[in-house]
């Protein structure tokens, strides 16, 4: 495969475009799922869509893409709102409710699928592609549907941006301000369900949740701003779609869905490690710097302790009377000298005026002038 194939090969171009749009809408709506602590809702809904797919086929008897999508949408919505009902009305916690709906709906879906397979007029071949998804079956019409849905959800998102933002960060306050939180809740849940149903055909039931989560989780590490996070997540999603499709097209026997998920997962890993401020690397560096700084302060305060009993604070002392217990190393001493808190002459040190003021202010910050 060559890079130019992306532009010349019709099938590949359609699939790449489709997965890119799918990644973008998943990243966009996934940000809300992640921030609302509903990360696993996507997993549950994507499984819950299965009986809808099967029922749509049983009832209509034809394998029409759009009918099947509508069936999946309805059963996904039923699942999502049943989860909310269980959490609200019984003492079962949300994890149990999610697991219940996920496995029971999926089981029922499997029952229906195997039932369909044994039906006499079965031209059902291909229904099970929704289990793992097959990006290769994407046609131009699907891409158009995805693009339209993405446009609509972006529009609605922008329309209710301020309300949704408020709901995310302070649901109670939103309610007291008089916004209809129930409506907003239904709105965002419905859009998440729609995004999931769209993705079923491409990445399948099992991996759909990762499509929703991974871009958002990666984007969360880079920013604390909701707008930036949503934009970044869409970008990560689209990018994992394109890169994943590229990799899977370059080799035989490599299904697209899992590759996209792995690409998205590596984005997450990269962000976890390298993101500024929140990332593990940045955190480790900050930790080390703080520890060094603490050692420095400890040495300085110890010196202050010695010095303050003298009439002349710049009276020289031997370095030997400092000991390692107080965090003193030759490096700390040289840093202290650099900052002109102390002067070193041979094996003697003496405190400067600045050093004395600094040490006093450290004690003041600690709220104790005498130990």
């Amino acid at each position, binding site marked *: 495969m060559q890079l130019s194939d992306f532009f010349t090969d019709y099938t590949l171009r359609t699939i790449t475009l489709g997965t890119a749009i799918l990644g973008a809408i998943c990243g966009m709506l996934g940000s809300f799922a992640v921030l609302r602590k509903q990360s696993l809702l996507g997993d549950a809904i994507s499984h819950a869509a299965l009986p809808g797919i099967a029922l749509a086929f049983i009832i209509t008897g034809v394998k029409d893409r759009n009918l099947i999508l509508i069936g999946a949408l309805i059963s996904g919505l039923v699942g999502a709102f049943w989860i909310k009902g269980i959490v609200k009305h019984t003492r079962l916690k949300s994890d*149990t409710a999610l697991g219940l709906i996920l496995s029971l709906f999926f089981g029922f879906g499997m029952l229906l699928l195997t039932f369909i397979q044994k039906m006499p007029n079965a031209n059902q071949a291909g229904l099970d592609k929704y289990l793992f998804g097959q990006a290769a079956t994407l046609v131009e019409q699907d891409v158009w549907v995805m693009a339209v849905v993405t446009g609509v959800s972006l529009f609605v998102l922008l329309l209710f941006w301020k309300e949704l933002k408020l709901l995310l960060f302070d649901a109670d306050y939103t309610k007291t301000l008089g916004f209809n939180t129930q409506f907003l809740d239904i709105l965002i849940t419905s859009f998440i369900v729609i995004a999931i149903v769209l993705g079923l055909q491409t990445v399948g039931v099992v991996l759909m949740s990762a499509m929703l989560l991974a871009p958002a989780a990666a984007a969360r590490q880079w920013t604390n701003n909701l707008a930036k996070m949503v934009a970044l997540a869409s970008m990560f999603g689209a990018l994992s779609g394109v890169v994943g499709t590229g990799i899977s097209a370059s080799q035989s026997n490599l299904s697209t869905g899992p590759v996209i998920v792995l690409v998205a997962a590596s984005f997450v890993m990269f962000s976890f490690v390298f993101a500024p401020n929140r990332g593990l690397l940045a955190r480790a560096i900050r930790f080390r710097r703080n520890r060094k700084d603490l050692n420095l302060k400890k040495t300085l305060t110890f010196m202050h302790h010695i010095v303050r009993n003298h009439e002349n604070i710049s009276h020289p002392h031997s370095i030997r009377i400092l000991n390692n217990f107080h965090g003193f190393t030759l490096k700390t001493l040289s840093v202290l000298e650099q900052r002109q808190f102390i002067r070193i002459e041979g094996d003697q040190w003496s405190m400067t005026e600045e050093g004395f003021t600094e040490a006093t202010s450290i004690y003041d910050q600690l709220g104790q002038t005498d130990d």
Partner: protein
Amino acid sequence: MTSAQIEIQLIASLVAIACALPGTFLVLRKMAMISDAISHSILPGIVLGFFITQDLNSPLLIVLAALTGVVTVMLVEFIQRTKLVKEDTAIGLVFPALFSIGVIMIAKNANDVHLDIDAVLLGELAFAPFDRLVAGGTDLGPKSLWVIGSILLISVSLLLLFFKELKLSTFDKGLAATLGFSPVILHYGLMTVSSVTIVGAFDAVGAVLVVALIIAPAASAYLLTDDLRKMLILSCCFGVFAAISGYWMANLLDASIAGSMSTMLGLLFLLVYLFAPNRGVISVLVRQRRQRLEVALLVFLLHLQNHEEPEERHVKHLQEHINWQKVQSERVLNLATNNNLIKITDGVIDLTGKGRQFTAEALNYITINKETAIEDLKEQFFLFRG
């Protein structure tokens, strides 16, 4: 019934019991979704084990896969500890990644591996009796019966041995730790047992439906009882019921056994969810409705107590003053009259002696006791029984 049919039902029942036991604790510890994560992420372990052993029932494969399950839990907990994402996000990130690796491993070696991804996800109980354990020329029964039987034996004996510790650490982690039972060891013990059970069961019912067998019986039982022992027994019963009835339904419809087992579980849960006494949706809604009426009654009585002037106490006035709907005010009025708390003369409402006493004491309760200790008061006045 043929012997194959009996064997299938036996295997299904044993799988159901083996899943229900750890499931109870997972549901109580709010870790139900971990079972979903484990059941998916064992896939690479299973594939790897299958490459080595070429046998889905080999002990090595089970150990390898169970190990993958425990690694999943550790990975999830590692990500949770970094505090970079919320805990459920950690679960949602780890298992699809591991599952994808498994799917790709299968796809890349599709030609030399007789391991179907559908079989992994869905299992096929109907073929279980054909894979038999033969030792020294004698037929000892289906292999998977032995596998799930020994797993069940291990988990039952562990449960009996550590019942007290498990119970304590499930309901009061802090106390368990202070008393010297290591929560970490118990936690990982439970995780290991769950992993092994899921691996043992996936062959029969598949990766997703294992989750149904783990969560649904325990969740249904949790809505019916407060006693851990009863909950364990109930969830085992539910599991066995679903296994046997599911088998016959599958037989009838000529469909997947695992699918119809979880459909039965779903129906069972739906029944319990709607009709469970005290905790079912219907009884919760009825209770909420009654409490709303009771609060309305109290407000009404307090209003009467506060107003001496007749125009404030007129029946007609009630609606506009407290701003109630017509139906609501009629219901409150009827309840109060039936309980002999008020009497109406010429459309003006008066508190009776009983009404005055009740209102005063209720007010007392509300202002002094923040707790809702009003239940005793209701008993005392024989209230809200008609």
